[in-house]
């Protein structure tokens, strides 16, 4: 089963990388970009076919390692 964990910075957390990308897009002349926040995407292959179990596994992975919940939120999806 294919799955995806998306990790994003919580709102209010300063994101200097996002700011730099935002600045670069502006200097490239890409119009209409109001702001950029950088995050991470993990594409994960889950063994077995039990969807509920896969979601529990992904949640455990995110809580234990993939996200630092002090500053980040995450979303899990079984695709």
């Amino acid at each position: 089963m294919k799955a995806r964990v998306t990790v994003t910075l919580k709102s209010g957390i300063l994101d200097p990388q996002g700011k730099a990308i935002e600045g670069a897009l502006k200097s490239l002349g890409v119009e209409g970009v109001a702001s950029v926040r950088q995050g991470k995407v993990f594409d994960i292959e889950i063994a077995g076919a039990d969807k509920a179990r896969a979601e529990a596994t992904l949640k455990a992975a995110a809580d234990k390692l993939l996200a630092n919940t002090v500053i980040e939120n995450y979303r899990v999806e079984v695709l």
Partner: protein
Amino acid sequence: MKSAVLVFPGINRERDMARALKLISGHEPQMVWHAETSLPEGTDLVVVPGGFSYGDYLRCGAIAARAPVMDAVRAFAADGGLVLGVCNGFQILCEAGLLPGVLMRNARLKFICHDVHLRVERSDTPFTRGYNAGQVIRVPVAHGEGNYEADEETLKQLEGEGRVLYRYCSPEGVVDEGSNINGAAHSIAGIVNARGNVLGMMPHPENHVEGIMGCTDGRGLFAGLVAHLERAA
């Protein structure tokens, strides 16, 4: 003082640390590999040194913080044992939940590698008793992610409980915007946990301990730990 220096793949400041510990305590520290599940018998101080554990993959210190040896460090700290984390070590201690908050990318995005001045906020702790409160020391930093951040509640707690031990300052000891090299909240360079036995700091005191280094301001931190342990013994 019997110290144990943790070694993770990608760590590169462990020998500087071991040299400083030997020089000041007179005892050769034990190097402890990350896959170990226990610390050497009679350890007084655990040091998590600087470097780039696991290539800073995922988040700085995130993977090292989940290594087997960290369970032993957690138990050691819960027992009141002294733990010092420097640079990547500070990041590892935050990721391991031994210290609150997180070290974010430097506000101006640059890797910073030069001497900085730190104000020692108090002298009545094992990690600062080698200094006077308000003393200014000069030590090097070398990091890209040293911008300490925590939520308002945590910052209030840190300040209220006097847990900020080292702050970036000017050579005269003034804490201001200009001397806050990485944009850290409240110019925080080093904090302790609630119990006061775990210190994390971004600067490298171990690199200013011998005349040949051009400065010996870092000695006080280690000398203070030695004095603290001798007094406790």
